[in-house]
């Protein structure tokens, strides 16, 4: 399993990722994704939305998966949750292990139990996951009663306690509210409270602040960080925004065209990005205090129905040469806390 530490320069495809720097030794990762492939069968052929993704999350860790649209970051999350609609989607191969137990192949019934109690998920738009015709109380109580062994009165108490935990003022009164009566920020808080009530060990947050205003965004991120520490919960944060990553993540996996291109601690990624894509992405973002021209990445992300023969970034990469077009480079460990998928790292 992943306990074997990859030697520097050794291909580790299909193996787990190495631990973040400073993490305590070989405790088992909470979630381990190995060579996951999620494909969609469409009119235009097979779309390989996730094509050999491996990463792992340790208990209590925040892993940010960063990527642009079509990078496969959300499809990976849906695969973990067992929510990939089939057809057209299917998990072609790979393993998703939660505390050592493979989730692929579990029945819908088993997944239902796992989704509620061990893995929770919050989405970009909380309105779509809250039922507009029920009050916050009935939705929270239903979830709590279903997954925890408590009575009705107790469920209400838990709901109030959780709303208070996420700093919703006057929680007892808010219980009677309908989702549309709450602002976007409050709705996201309610969603977080609902998930916390089930005491999951892993929270998947899919663009949790993208729909919110900057000032509210900051509030929700600091709340996530706070409850993560308090509940010793791991967070898989899916985002396109490096600002969000830098605020709360411990480690980052950068995805592109269905593959992980680079993983490292947040600090290493931001300060010394090694993959050309990571570098290009970081330098293309606009920043306060700078003017003039932005260093844009030319071209557009690849058409997943016609994948590139070699490195998926080859057609946009500034450092490309002919050899990049031959084979997909391997994701290999380069240093204790970093992996890079680039042919340069092979020959370095």
């Amino acid at each position, binding site marked *: 399993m992943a306990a074997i530490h990859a030697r520097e320069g050794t291909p580790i495809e299909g193996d787990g990722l190495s631990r973040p720097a400073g993490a305590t030794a070989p405790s088992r990762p909470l979630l381990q994704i190995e060579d996951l492939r999620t494909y969609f069968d469409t009119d235009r052929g097979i779309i390989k939305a996730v094509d050999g993704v491996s990463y792992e999350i340790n208990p209590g860790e925040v892993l940010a998966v960063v990527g642009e649209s079509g990078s496969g970051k959300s499809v990976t999350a849906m695969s973990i949750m067992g929510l990939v609609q089939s057809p057209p989607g299917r998990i072609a191969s790979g393993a998703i292990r939660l505390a050592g137990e493979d989730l692929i192949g579990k029945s819908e019934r088993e997944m239902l139990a796992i989704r509620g109690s061990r893995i929770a998920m919050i989405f970009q738009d909380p309105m779509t996951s809250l039922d507009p015709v029920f009050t916050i109380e009935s939705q929270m109580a239903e979830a709590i009663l279903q997954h925890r062994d408590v009575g009705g009165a107790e469920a209400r108490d838990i709901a109030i306690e959780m709303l208070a935990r996420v700093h919703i003022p006057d929680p007892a009164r808010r219980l009677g509210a309908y989702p549309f009566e709450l602002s976007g920020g409050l709705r996201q808080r309610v969603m977080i409270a609902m998930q916390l009530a089930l005491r999951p060990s892993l929270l998947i947050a899919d663009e949790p602040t993208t729909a919110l205003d900057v000032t509210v965004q900051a509030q929700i991120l600091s709340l996530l960080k706070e409850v993560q520490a308090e509940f010793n919960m791991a967070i898989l944060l899916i985002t396109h925004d490096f600002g969000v990553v830098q605020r709360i993540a411990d480690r980052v996996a950068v995805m592109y065209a269905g593959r992980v291109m680079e993983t490292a601690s947040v600090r290493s990624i931001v300060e010394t990005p090694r993959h050309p894509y990571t570098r290009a992405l970081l330098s293309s973002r606009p920043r306060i205090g700078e003017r003039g021209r932005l260093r844009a990445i030319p071209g557009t992300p690849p058409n997943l129905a016609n994948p590139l023969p070699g490195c998926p970034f080859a057609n946009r990469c500034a450092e490309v040469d002919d050899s990049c*077009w031959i084979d997909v480079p391997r994701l290999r460990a380069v240093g204790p806390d970093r992996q890079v998928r680039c042919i340069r790292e092979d020959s370095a």
Partner: protein
Amino acid sequence: MAETTVTASQSEPSNGLVRRREWEAREAQAVRQAESSLRLFWIALQRDKLAMASALFLTVVVIMTIFAPVVAPYDPYEADPALRLQGFGTEGHILGLDGQGRDILSRLIYGARVSLPIALAPVIVATAISLLLGLIAGFYRRGIGEFIMRVLDVFYAFPTVMLAIAIAGILGPGMPNVMLSIIVVLIPFITRVVYTATMTIAEEEFIQAARACGASDLRIILHDVLPNVLSPVIVYGTTTMGLQTVFAAGLSFLGLGVQPPIADWGIMTAEGRSVLGIAPHVSAVPGVMLLLVALAFNLLGDGLRDALDPRLRQ
């Protein structure tokens, strides 16, 4: 560091170039034959076997109707009293003969010339009127739109069949009157479909963009809104045609529509009523035909809806 699994060192650089060219060619090809909306629609429709079968069936029916004098084996009014009420498989009369000894197959084919137009023409006319009303009401929701929809709501409130019977009853029997009553009955339904679709489209940013370009309301309605509301209307119209085939026949059956001796599927069914016990086929044949045509229109409508919906196409 020197891992032998790395293939790059073994390959010629030109190998990479070849692969790159191949990919670029594929990419260009994918974009070139890039799915025009029509092609995607056709692919999606072809996959729906029931809809394709329905389309085929309706095509055959329409062709037979148009070429009735050529296709039909007998004159539909020519009676052979000796063979009255003979059943299926009678020599020379596959579908048997009716109470007066007329060939049922021939009457069925000629009947379509009455039954189909009587059902389809009103749908087409009603759709045209509804498009006008619905586009105006959906685009100008306050004032005129409000007025149109409220007036139509009054018609909505009456049961459809009752309303049509009442209109046909007041105007007296006859084909034009039946058609008129069907048109009146259909307008509120189709208008609502157009209205809802128009409202949705009118909210889209490209309508504002058209305004910003200086387009007049009339131009926006015709150039931007209309092409986008056509598909739901076509779907609804197709499904409605099935219903109207039965409905028009029903009015004839009740004696409010076309009058005997004209061959019409409704009348044929009605005529067979008195001999239902001894010769059920006289009613059953036009009845089943009505059912099949109605079903075919419905299935085709469903198929069109799925094929026209880009979300279901993906």
